[in-house]
Every structure is written in structure tokens, then in C-alpha cells.
């Protein structure tokens, strides 16, 4: 099919089609022109470049930035190790091909991470110091090394004691990193996009198991557990997140003396966790209801204990069936972290973005569009990556193939 027939068939099939094509095509080109013109010519991006450090890590002391760099590198190696470990297991179980050509492997990896890599590269190009470059390169190298080591560790070479130590080390790594950073710079000193990411990540990890427990609790036959779950879910879902954040900020002092009260980011994490868990519980309950009755009966007939029925048969199917809704909720959580800025005075990305437009050099220059566009790009990059990864997960787990 040549271009002419393609255009006739798809763009100018009838007179109304042709009119629509011309009108919306012109509009699209106009918007594209305006956007590109803004991005490359009229936009005053020096405000981003000058404040890059503030936007990314807030008022984190420069002297302690190496700690963040070390943490990022360790975390990258840790994540790479886990990915490699899982992959090694899949290969041994025959669920993933053992030999993939290097070219295909690189293509597949780029297909997955080109977007975050591009944005990170953009940030590196904007930066004026060598630190971020070294950190990024170190993180990439650590991730690759971890990914290569991962498959070998799983081969039962360690024995029971070794395996236990390894599991503990893997589980403790994020905690150790947290204390490594927090001993240098108190939790209240964290800020910028880094704080948004941190709040979201910790809340996601904590809210997920809580949501599962609440969903199971709501379906429990024990009246007490069921009542607690229902009351909790309905109470939390009825309150606006913003109000809960404000309450955590102001009302806590009525109950807890100021000197033992948790820091603001910790309070924000608690609110995000409790809030999202209620929504996750209802989503997961929907998943539980989508598992046919016969699955419960077959599991019972085999003599599986109730815990194993749930853990091995029901939950895997239930969670798989509602991946899109779950990821949607978690993306929501991530974006809602900006509310912690307004409600609790945390110096997260949007607060930074607002603050830098008030700086001496930039005041009164109406630079909000620039900083907001930049903030939006960062959020969109992470959220879209989450969305893509969830779609990949769905395909991997074979949703819809029964």
C-alpha cells in the first residue's frame, strides 16, 4: 500500500473525514509548533538548571550528598541483584529462556527503561557538577553487577545458614541505608523530588500487605475481624486525604508530646499507608470475588489448610486479576505525595518549585510554567514507567489465559 492509498483510506475516506483531518491536523501541528517553540526557544530553563539540586533533593546539606550517592549506588546494586535472582529462578524452573543473544537482551532492556534513562540523562546534562554523573555511572555499574551475580546465588550453594543471612541482608539493606542517611541529615531535612519518591515507595511497600489483610478480614467469617475491617475501610475512605494529612500535622500534638512525636515525613508515610491500604483492600476484595467458587472447593477438597488455600490458590489469582486497578491506586498514591507539601509543609518537589520562583533573580518573572512543566515531566516519567511495568507484569502472568 503506498502513501496515497493509505491516506485516502484512513484520512480522507469521505468529505466529513477530510474536513476533520484538515481541522484537527492543523490544530495538532499548531500545538506541536507552540510546544516545541516553548521547549527549545522561548522557555527560560535557567531557573531549572540553577536550582537543580533544590528540585531534586531539597535543602539536603551539600557536605552529606555523597551519602545519597552511595545509597543510590547500593540500592541500584540491590535491585539488580534481586532482578537477577528472580531471573535465575525462572530459568531453572523453565519459565524463562536460558540463552538470549546479547543484542536481543540489550534491545529488551532499552525497550523497558529508555524513558527513565532519557530523563536521567537530561537531568545529568542540566547538572553543573561531576557528582551526579559519577553516581549515575556507579549505579548503572552496580545494577549490572548485581544482575549478573543474582542468578548464581540462588543455586542452593549457600546452605540454610547462608541463605538466612542473605535474606536478612537483602531485607535489611533499605533500613541500613535509611539510617545511614538519617543519622547525617534528620528526616525533616529531606526534600525535593527525592522526598516524593521516598514517601511513595515506603508507603507502597507498607500499604500493600495491610490492604491484603484488610481485604481478607472483610471476607472473614469471624464477626470481630470483619467488623474492624469494614469500619476501618469505610472510615478512611470517607475522609479526604488532604484532611487526614492536615490532622496528622496538627492534631497529633493533642495526643503525643512534641518531643516524642514522629517527624513530619514519618507522619506523612503513616497517613499515605493507612489511606491507600483502605482503597487497596477494596480493590483486592474485588479480585477475591472474581475467583470462582470451584477454586475454593478444589483447594479444600485437596486437604489444604485455610492459610495455604488462601496463599497458594486464591490470592495469586485474585491479585493477578486486579493488577490494573492496583497499579492505578499506587500511581495515585505517588502523585498524591505533593499534597504532603501543602498540608504538612514538607519541602517536596512542588513546594520547591513554588519557592524557587520567589528567589531574588527569578522573582516576578512568571516562571511558574517552566517549573511546573519540569515537575510534571518528572512525575509523568515515574508514573508512566509504573504503568508500563504493570502491563508487562500482566502479560507475564498471563491474565486472561484461563
Amino acid at each position: 500500500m503506498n502513501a496515497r492509498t493509505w491516506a485516502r483510506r484512513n484520512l480522507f475516506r469521505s468529505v466529513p473525514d477530510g474536513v476533520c483531518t484538515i481541522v484537527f491536523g492543523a490544530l495538532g501541528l499548531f500545538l506541536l509548533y507552540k510546544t516545541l517553540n516553548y521547549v527549545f526557544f522561548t522557555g527560560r530553563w535557567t531557573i531549572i538548571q540553577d536550582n537543580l539540586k533544590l528540585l531534586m533533593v531539597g535543602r539536603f546539606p551539600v557536605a552529606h550528598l555523597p551519602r545519597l550517592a552511595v545509597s543510590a549506588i547500593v540500592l541500584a546494586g540491590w535491585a539488580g541483584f534481586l532482578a537477577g535472582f528472580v531471573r535465575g529462578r525462572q530459568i531453572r524452573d523453565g519459565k524463562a529462556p536460558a540463552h538470549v543473544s546479547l543484542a536481543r537482551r540489550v534491545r529488551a532492556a532499552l525497550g523497558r527503561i529508555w524513558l527513565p534513562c532519557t530523563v536521567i540523562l537530561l537531568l545529568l546534562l542540566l547538572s553543573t557538577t561531576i557528582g551526579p554523573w559519577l553516581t549515575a555511572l556507579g549505579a548503572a555499574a552496580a545494577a549490572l553487577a548485581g544482575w549478573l551475580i543474582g542468578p548464581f546465588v540462588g543455586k542452593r550453594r549457600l546452605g540454610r545458614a547462608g541463605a538466612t543471612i542473605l535474606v536478612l541482608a537483602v531485607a535489611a539493606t533499605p533500613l541500613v541505608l535509611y539510617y545511614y542517611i538519617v543519622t547525617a541529615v534528620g528526616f525533616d531535612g529531606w526534600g525535593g523530588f527525592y522526598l516524593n519518591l521516598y514517601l511513595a515507595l515506603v508507603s507502597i511497600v507498607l500499604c500493600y500487605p495491610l490492604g491484603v489483610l484488610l481485604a481478607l478480614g472483610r471476607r472473614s467469617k469471624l464477626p470481630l475481624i470483619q467488623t474492624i475491617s469494614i469500619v476501618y475501610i469505610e472510615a478512611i475512605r470517607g475522609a479526604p486525604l488532604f484532611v487526614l494529612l492536615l490532622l496528622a500535622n496538627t492534631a497529633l500534638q493533642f495526643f503525643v508530646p512534641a518531643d516524642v512525636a514522629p517527624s513530619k515525613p514519618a507522619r506523612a508515610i503513616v497517613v499515605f499507608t493507612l489511606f491507600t491500604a483502605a482503597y487497596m483492600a477494596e480493590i483486592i476484595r474485588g479480585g477475591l470475588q472474581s475467583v470462582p467458587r470451584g477454586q475454593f472447593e478444589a483447594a479444600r477438597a485437596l486437604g489444604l489448610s485455610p492459610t495455604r488455600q488462601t496463599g497458594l490458590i486464591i490470592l495469586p489469582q485474585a491479585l493477578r486479576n486486579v493488577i490494573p486497578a492496583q497499579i492505578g491506586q499506587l500511581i495515585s498514591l505517588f502523585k498524591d505525595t505533593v499534597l504532603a507539601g501543602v498540608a504538612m509543609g514538607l519541602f517536596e518537589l512542588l513546594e520547591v518549585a513554588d519557592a524557587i520562583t520567589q528567589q531574588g533573580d527569578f522573582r516576578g518573572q512568571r516562571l511558574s510554567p517552566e517549573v511546573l512543566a519540569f515537575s510534571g515531566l518528572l512525575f509523568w516519567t515515574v508514573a508512566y514507567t509504573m504503568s508500563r511495568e504493570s502491563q508487562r507484569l500482566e502479560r507475564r502472568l498471563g491474565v486472561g489465559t484461563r
Partner: protein
Amino acid sequence: MSEFSDATQVTDERDVLIELAHVDKFFGDFQALRDINLRVGRQEVVVVIGPSGSGKSTMIRCINRLEEHDAGRIAVDGVELTHDVRNIQEIRRETGMVFQSFNLFPHLSVLDNITLAPRHVRKMSRAKAEALGMELLATVRIPEQAKKYPGQLSGGQQQRVAIARALAMRPKVMLFDEPTSALDPEMINEVLDTMKDLAREGMTMIVVTHEMGFAREVADRVVFMADGEIVEVGAPEHFFTDPREERTKAFLSQIL
């Protein structure tokens, strides 16, 4: 049990594997089972027939407590079914069940479906369980499907996997709840053949089915149920040619 003075009734106490005595079951106000009395001996094959809604499925689902009976006594190999969870678990370990709609676990491979219970209930090692699983897949004649997922198999193959899954627990009795009713006609025989193999090897079986040919060929006794009651019990040769009860005659005249 004086109600059934039939020659085929199990007499020796030691040979009774399953006993139901005066079992009643209600769904709300509806009485699904009325005073059910049935004893099944070791290595016996009992086929249960009757019109739909007559309580056939409910009866065998009471035996492994998928339904709870309201009165009477049910015992499997001397263990009485009570509210004690340990008793229920013990009986479920000893009874294999095959469902009308297969109920395979769609997120697990065929082999994992079969090895799940041996590994997690019998605490068998993975390697041993998989060896057992492959052996069972060979007996139901589909060893080549081990790595596939249930959704990739035909109905007849799925039902044979379901039989292998139930056998993997080495049960003392197999309960079949209309195992061929959800199958396309051309797949019914492959499942019935598997069941015949089992019967020949001496497995104790209770089979709810509409396959009269199977009943005639394999059953030691045929149980006819209607309106929640056992109406008539007899050896297939007498049952199909010379039924005593009017309701049995009416039912047989409809389906034969």
C-alpha cells in the same frame, strides 16, 4: 442396616470404608437429603444416578465436608466427620474429588497442579512429588502436557489432570461429581476410560453420573436417588432390567 437386605450390601464391618447413617441435610427450609443410609466397601464402585435436584451431588459433597450435614453420621475409614477441623482435614486427605467443571488451578502448570497437595499437605519433597506427578500423568495418558497450563488443554485432558491431581494424595476413595457432564461428547470416553482403569486397579469409587453404560459396565452397585432419598440400591444387572420401585421404573423409562 436392615433397609437394604440386598445380596450386594456390604456385610463385614472391617470392609466398610464409607458409612452414611441417617444423614439429613437442609438448605434453608428445603430438605436436600432425607435419612440417607449407605455403606461403601473397600474397592467397591458405587454409581449414583437420579434426576437433577435429587441430592446426588449434595450427598457426595457431604462426605468430604464441602457441604455440612445437619443430622446423622458420616465416617470415612472409621474417622467420623465432626466439627473438629483435624478430623475434616484428615478425611479430606483420604478422599479425592473430581468436579464437573474440573476446577484446575489456572495459574499453575499441569505438573504444579498435581504436586501442590503432596508437597504442602503430605510434605513430600519437590523432586519426589514431581516424580509421582509424572507417574500419574502417565497413568491418565497425558505425560507430554506436564509443563502446559490448564487453559491450554482440552476439556477431556483437563478432567484427566483433575483425576491425577486427586490421585496424587493417594486417597482411599475417589468421589466423582458428574465428571463428564461438562465435556464435549467426543471427550467423554477418554475420561470414562481413565475411570475404568482406576476401578480395575481396585480404587474405591463413588460416581455421580448420567452415563448409564458406565454404570452397567463398572458399577458393583447402583444407587438411585430422588427427592433427597435413596429409593433403590441394586447390582446393575438387576437394577436396569428388573427395578422394584415405581420411581426407578419411571426414571429409567425416561432415559433409556
